[in-house]
């Protein structure tokens, strides 16, 4: 299951010391109907280009990502974004769209799309600046396309999406479009919630290559993934969550052999 060479490739990444955005989560809790689903004392994401977040179902991983993205509000605590040379931003005080504008973007676990919009529409939407989406600015379509044409076509070619002037039909296509939207934004922090779920093997490899390239260019990437081969291959740091808490953090080789992880998540006999 695990490609042993993955660690070696990861360690060689020259950008590992590149200044990159960091997310700090401090004393954050979130409850639903009296049940605490996230209770994180302290967690920093972004010391490494790509970090993994693993744990059994119901561990609070996706909820933590939603708290970071502002689609859920924290009950208490703070989530901050630190970027070198810029003022620290307290994300937990911002509305969701401001968080995205500050450079934190997430691809979705649940397949989601804009009904009625074509693939090209969907990609152009992600890169169109606010000034061109004004009700009195009705002539910016061609200019937006011309500015981003090369990047969009490169991504479409890389992922084998040939006809972008149609709506995405399959779940896999919608998932891919969701990921490409995130890649086009070149975010400071990219949160990927099960990015490879529902994608064929070849496309999964392309997604991972694209994520690695983005990380190499300075984006901090955090991945939730049940396909642990992806985690072991890409991540330099892995956080293990269970019952809403961060139980362990460390290098993949340490995490995968830790007794707690093996007993509560991986099971005996995992590779």
């Amino acid at each position, binding site marked *: 299951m695990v490609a042993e060479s993955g660690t070696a490739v990861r360690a060689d990444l020259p950008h590992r010391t590149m200044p990159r955005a960091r997310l700090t989560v401090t004393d954050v809790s979130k409850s639903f109907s009296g049940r605490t689903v996230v209770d994180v004392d302290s967690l920093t994401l972004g010391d490494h280009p790509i970090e993994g977040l693993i744990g059994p179902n119901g561990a609070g991983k996706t909820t933590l990502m939603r708290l970071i*993205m*502002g*689609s859920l509000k924290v009950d208490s605590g703070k989530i901050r974004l630190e970027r070198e040379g810029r003022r620290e931003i307290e994300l937990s005080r911002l*509305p*969701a*769209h*401001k968080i*995205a*504008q500050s450079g934190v*973007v*997430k691809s*979705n676990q649940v397949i*989601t*799309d*804009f*009904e*009625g*919009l*074509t693939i*090209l*529409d*969907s990609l*152009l*939407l*992600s890169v*169109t600046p*606010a000034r*061109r*989406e*004004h*009700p009195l*600015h*009705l*002539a*910016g*379509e*061609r200019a*937006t*396309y011309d500015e981003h044409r090369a990047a969009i076509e490169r991504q479409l070619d890389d992922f084998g999406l040939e*006809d*972008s*002037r*149609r*709506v995405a039909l399959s779940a896999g296509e919608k998932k891919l479009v969701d990921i490409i*939207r995130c890649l086009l*934004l070149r975010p400071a922090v990219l949160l990927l919630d099960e990015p490879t779920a529902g994608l064929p093997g070849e496309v999964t490899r392309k997604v991972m290559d694209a994520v690695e390239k983005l990380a190499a260019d300075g984006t901090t990437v955090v991945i939730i993934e049940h396909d642990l081969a992806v985690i072991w291959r890409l991540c330099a740091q892995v956080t293990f969550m269970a019952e809403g808490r961060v139980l362990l953090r460390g290098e993949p080789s340490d995490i995968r052999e830790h007794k707690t992880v093996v007993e509560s998540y991986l099971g005996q006999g995992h590779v």
Partner: protein
Amino acid sequence: MVLDTFLITGLFNVVMLIGLALLLHLQLGLTRIANFGVVGFWGVGLYTFGVLYVRVDWPFEDPIQFVVCAVLATAAAGLCGLLIGWLIADLDVDGVLVGTLGFATAVAILATTEQGLTGGARGMGGLRFPYDSGDVAVNELIWLLVLVALVAGILAYVWLVHRAPYGRLLIAIGSNEPLARSLGKPVTRTKLGLFTITSALMGLLGVMYGVMVRFLEVSSLGIEVTLATVVGLVVGGSVRVLGAVVGVLLTVGFFDIVIQSYLPLPAEWYTQTIPLMREVLFGVALILVLVFRPLGLLGHMRRDRLMKRIHGG
């Protein structure tokens, strides 16, 4: 005279409802704001204009008086749009329906009870065209042409919106608000802006109507305007640019002009039977379309064709 007064009035109503349906297309068809209080915003424009024009002793005369009153009435409708839009911003479809319908009802009640200003159930006269050709029928025809120009402008705007990033943003918000937010799109602000502008224009259409009829009656603030607008839009196709035009022509146009003008109906029908029959037929048309062609006669949005036309491929 080429057109008689009856036909001019009928055409005026059809063109005005096309304008309202086009604005509702932006709200409901693209952004999925289920405004069931169209008549409320239209009525705010109508009555604000009427009250300002008739009750206020302006130091200037037409056409400046008309322009000032029309601008203020349009702004009042826009302000109501901003307020109601803010109140319904986070509600689901049912909440928006009830909220906007409640607003329209409140406007009708205010127009009825504030007798000192609006004349209440007795109505209010004193409105006139901002020009005088010496012939009422010619004045009405000119006013119809002014309305046609205004609605053509609205149609052109809607056409351009479909081809602009702004239109794509509206569709994205209507389709999936959380996803649009996650891409950094200011969903609430965009919806508020749209609702304010379109409500203001609905108010302007109310101003146009007030000048045309020259007598304000609270009965005009009933459900009929909203119903005709919604039925026209849904029958034609709520997501297509021309859906509003086709739908209103096939429903209101067909009934108010073709049937009433060219079918030899008994004269006594015009008081009660025809208005009742109109609502019944509109209801039947709505049900048939929703059952057999839920997206309306013109069907899907077809962004695929539009993207190919704009960007090739």
